[in-house]
């Protein structure tokens, strides 16, 4: 009896899902036509099947990250979960992306000299003090200028007092030859003063020329250095971009080869199926 029941269930399921052999199917259909109860049961099962259909849920294909080998695999999908997991993954992905970009572009952030600065590419510490005249050096130069000026001023004062004294003695003599002497002395003094002024002017001019030349050289050197660095950075970036493009092309090629293999297989299978049906 149990065997009979079992057989009945198996045949019913096999028939319902079209998994009986032709022979079994024919025999079962004979039984069906002769047995109304059996037919009723079959119809009930068919009605149940038609009412329990469910649509598939759609979801986004996952991304897979693998560490290689048989170690571990991580997967993430767009709808990996509701609640805090989704925003947390988004945040983590954004931070990771920023870190990767930062690493790839050698991003550096600093707050030196009271400024927030962002820089890309290889950075070298630029010693600004070596490139410019420092405050100490500048003060020293000013002091030297002051000393030089005071020296000239002292000389000039001494010379003036000397002239005054000579003028006073000559006035006292009050004779013609004395007057000539005074005129001669006066012209000497004027020449001497003019020489002194021109020397002072030349000295100052030379000093300024030297200072400006030195400053220009330093600035030129600095700008040249920066241009060289920028050129190196551009070169590195270009090489990196080329490597990236080359890698992407390789991946595309691999994908294409794999897709071609799959397509060939699908086509071969379809062709063989069609051939078998034709035969």
């Amino acid at each position, binding site marked *: 009896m149990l065997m009979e029941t079992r057989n009945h269930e198996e045949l019913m399921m096999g028939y319902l899902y079209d998994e009986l052999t032709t022979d079994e199917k024919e025999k079962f259909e004979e039984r069906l036509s002769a047995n109304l109860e059996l037919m009723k049961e079959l119809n009930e099962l068919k009605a149940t099947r038609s009412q329990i259909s469910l649509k598939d849920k759609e979801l986004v294909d996952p991304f897979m990250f693998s560490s290689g080998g048989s170690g571990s*695999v991580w997967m993430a999908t767009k709808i990996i979960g509701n609640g805090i997991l989704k925003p947390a993954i988004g945040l983590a992905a954004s931070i990771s992306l920023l870190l990767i970009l930062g690493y790839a572009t050698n991003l550096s952030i600093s707050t030196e000299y009271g400024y927030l600065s962002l820089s890309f590419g290889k950075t070298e510490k630029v010693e600004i003090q070596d490139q410019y005249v420092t405050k100490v050096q500048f003060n020293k130069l000013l002091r030297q200028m002051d000393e030089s000026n005071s020296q000239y001023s002292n000389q000039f004062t001494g010379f003036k007092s000397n002239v005054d004294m000579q003028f006073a003695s000559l006035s006292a003599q009050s004779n013609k030859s004395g007057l000539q002497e005074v005129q001669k002395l006066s012209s000497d003094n004027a020449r001497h003063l003019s020489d002194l002024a021109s020397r002072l002017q030349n000295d100052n001019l030379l000093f300024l020329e030297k200072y400006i030349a030195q400053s220009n050289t330093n600035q030129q050197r600095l700008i040249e250095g920066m241009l060289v660095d920028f050129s190196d950075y551009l070169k590195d970036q270009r090489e990196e971009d080329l490597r990236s493009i080359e890698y992407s092309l390789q991946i595309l090629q691999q994908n294409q080869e794999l897709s071609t293999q799959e397509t060939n297989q699908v086509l071969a299978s379809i062709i063989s199926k069609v051939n078998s049906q034709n035969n």
Partner: protein
Amino acid sequence: MLAETLEEIAIKHSDLLIRNAIRGNEKAFSQLMNLWYKRIYNFCFKYFGNHDMAMETTQKTFISVHKAIGKLNEPESFKSWIYQIASNKCREEDRKNKRRSWLSIFQRQEENDTKVMQLEHHTDDGFYNPDRVIEEKEMENIVMNCLHQIPEEQRVIVIMKEYEGLKFREIAVSLSITESTAKSRLYYGLKAMKKQLELRNIYKENAYGN
């Protein structure tokens, strides 16, 4: 009978992918996973009736598949093998979460479905019919609820046969039972589903002809 989708055709003809994945080709595995992910997710979703648990179990299934695929000797048995892993994972997760009440799960499911309904404005004929959409969603919820009222050993076979379209032979291999037992459990599973539909007064005797 439903027309085969391109995805289903691709699944049927994924022998090369399976062989490459067995050999350790990560790209092939990734493609294989993309092909099977939706199927396994839907299997798990129908088993649990809950998106989060289905996602978690699907991911665990694929992690196990990735670990063990190198040991798969017969690429032809991949389908049975992956469903075997998925059903084992489902049972494992089910045991872990047994304390959860189905009521709360279905409440959450209803919330999710309401959100989905708001997005799915168009029906198959291209027109938005809110009544029809709500009716379909309600029916799906009822069927899911019925599915979770029948015994687990019958439920898993109903899902495998009715929604995943496995052959009895494949079900038998996946669940390590005989074909005869698989057929018998499905028979009683369908009977139990009919009973559940009758309890909700929605069983229609001549529905199969529609």
